[in-house]
């Protein structure tokens, strides 16, 4: 049958005037790389779940996107990642939440789906499971990206200047703090 692959790298206040031509090119190149990686898996006749992993891991390893290495910072100044995967033929699913040191969160979700009797695992337990599954564990500093950290500091500065309530009033969906 026909093969098909679709990806996203996040949505939000993305405005043409706020993205330089260089950033625009970088995003398009990385999205294309992810598409090609996933599609190549499908062309080889391999399962859709494997193509999903291939495409997402390209984006997880890029600091351009809010996942894996490009993750934003929590109010505590840490990186906490979530991921999920699901297969349509069996409706098997796996999910992880609150990971801080698994290099590829989507691979942890896959491991939960394929190698555990559970659907979702969280926090230290999920990380212990990932480690037992042989997934790559990294120091949390692997996820540190300066501009993401600077973004957290700007939000905290607004809170300091205006108070949390005022910050929430301006951005009610941002759940500041």
């Amino acid at each position, binding site marked *: 049958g026909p093969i098909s692959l679709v990806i*996203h790298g996040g949505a939000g206040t993305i405005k043409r005037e706020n993205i330089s031509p260089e950033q625009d090119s970088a995003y398009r190149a990385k999205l294309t790389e992810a598409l090609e990686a996933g599609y190549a898996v499908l062309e080889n006749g391999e399962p859709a779940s494997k193509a999903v992993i291939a495409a997402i891991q390209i984006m997880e390893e890029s600091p351009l996107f809010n*996942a894996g290495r490009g993750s934003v910072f929590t109010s505590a100044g840490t990186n906490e990642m979530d991921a999920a995967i699901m297969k349509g*033929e069996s409706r098997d699913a796996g999910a992880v939440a609150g990971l801080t040191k698994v290099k590829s969160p989507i691979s942890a979700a896959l491991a939960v789906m394929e190698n555990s009797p559970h659907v979702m695992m969280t926090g230290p337990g999920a990380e212990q499971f990932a480690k037992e599954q042989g997934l790559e564990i990294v120091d949390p500093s692997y996820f540190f990206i300066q501009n993401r950290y600077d973004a*957290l500091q700007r939000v905290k500065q607004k809170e300091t200047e205006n108070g949390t309530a005022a910050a929430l009033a301006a951005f009610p969906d941002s759940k*500041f703090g």
Partner: protein
Amino acid sequence: TVGCVALDKQGNIAAGTSTGGMTNKKYGRVGDVPIIGAGTYADNETCGVSATGHGEYFIRSVVAYDIAAKMKYNGMSLKEAADKVVMDELVDFGGEGGIIALDKAGNITMPFNSNGMFRGYKNSSDTAKVFIYK
């Protein structure tokens, strides 16, 4: 947040999503990504979906499953169901973001109600296409 939905040669659909969450999120906050049916869903009979946006709204609207359910029980096409959920219901509810989805025939849709969404697709009849803005 990043996501991918794929249809393989055997006609199987898979969907996945991975995220770093939200800047300045509080301890223990979990968004829609790992909530099966909210941010991620796949069913060969209907579609696969990966979402991105304000997670709390996507959880309360069970966005990904709702698109599949509209196809399954209302007979809607993928595009009709996705547009109804993302461009109508989610907007009325106040949730901002978008989804990518594909069905068993390989049809693709990528609606979003925010300013932009990094997105792209490739299929048997098209080269890789990527988009950012509206």
